[in-house]
């Protein structure tokens, strides 16, 4: 629990959540890939890492930056997502339940790949992909890119597969599985 090594002011952690199956990871080091990477992208990556950790250990996971004061609400769920004004646009709760975990894991990992393919910004590309209205928008962006030899990028079945997976998660705003009342 001590994070003096990372050069952050020591904090006295006052809360202790008395459950045997709960992991808190104070993490002063971030998941930054670039120096100018936005908080939203980092939070999404942290969330993905936490959900993998949950699958490994079967414990509820909470990753927080070293400087923050821990507050664990009594009604916690499986994985904690660090609250942020921008991330609230897509993930509305601070805690993600087991029911939604798989959906988010698939969506974020697909978004990471698609952000690279569509040449989205390094700063917040993953988040940008997740806020697109439909998968068609992402596909159009990918096909508008050019390869190194200057030829327009072509879509193959691998990419369509990833897009399909993202579509079925229904994370994108206007992607819904048709369920109609009769």
């Amino acid at each position: 629990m001590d994070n003096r090594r990372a050069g952050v002011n020591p904090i006295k952690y006052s809360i202790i959540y008395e459950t045997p199956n709960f992991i808190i990871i104070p993490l002063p080091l971030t998941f930054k890939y670039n120096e100018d990477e936005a908080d939203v992208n980092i939070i999404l990556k942290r969330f993905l890492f936490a959900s993998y950790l949950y699958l490994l250990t079967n414990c509820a996971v909470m990753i927080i930056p070293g400087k923050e004061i821990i507050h664990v609400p009594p009604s916690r769920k499986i994985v904690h997502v660090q609250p942020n004004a921008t991330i609230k646009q897509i993930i509305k709760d601070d805690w993600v339940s087991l029911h939604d975990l798989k959906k988010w894991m698939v969506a974020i990992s697909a978004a990471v790949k698609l952000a690279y393919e569509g040449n989205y910004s390094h700063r917040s590309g993953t988040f940008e992909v997740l806020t697109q209205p439909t998968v068609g928008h992402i596909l159009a962006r990918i096909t508008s890119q050019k390869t190194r030899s200057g030829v327009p990028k072509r879509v193959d079945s691998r990419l369509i597969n990833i897009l399909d997976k993202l579509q079925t998660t229904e994370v994108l705003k206007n992607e819904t599985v048709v369920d109609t009342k009769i």
Partner: protein
Amino acid sequence: MRQLLIPKYERFDFNQTEVEEINEEGEKVKKPFLEWTDENNQKKILSVNTGIEEISRLFDKYLEQLKIFATTKSALMGPVGKILEQARVKGLDAEFLKGYGISTHKNTIKTPLDSEVLKPFESAIDLLSLLLQKVPRHMRPKAIEIISYKVYYRREKANVEFWEKWRKDFEEFLKNKYQNIKALIKECKLEELSKKRGIKDFQSIVQLPKKLRTKELQGIVDEFNKMRKEIIFEGEGEEE
């Protein structure tokens, strides 16, 4: 003081299936957002999102019969892109949109119009004009944009799947016709090209860009297409 007139837009949910209306007695009554009977005579209650899904499915069904194998979005969409543009700019009258769509179809598409082609086309436009009339005016461009990208995604996906299958079938066709790759290279006069690009198997011949094909190889491709009875319009079809 003079008051500023700022239009108040109510929050509109694309997933809502019910709308509140005031009846003759002045009471608030909940009504379904949009009722629709599909081609199987099934009654459905649609929201904007599910309506958009239905429209894109119907347009996709129409475009599937036209067999357009293009690479750009505007070419893939065919007359649908132009219809959506007219719906955005001019009006939502279903008959106007149908007339416009038929005229662009006649001018640009080689597939003749028959009842099978027209059926999904007409019902898509009917639903489009019904749905957009219920959507607030300021949200219409957004709804139209979503429809166009959904149709594009469906078409591109079908296109990719088609070429994937075509390549597999063509490879099998070549394997059955020729004993080994050397016989094929000799017949198609691909000796020089095979040295340059390192052609060693049938798969690399299948993936050869159209520009690099010799006359003999193109003849084999045409023979294969005739066998499959696929209509592939010249210049639009294959990937380069």
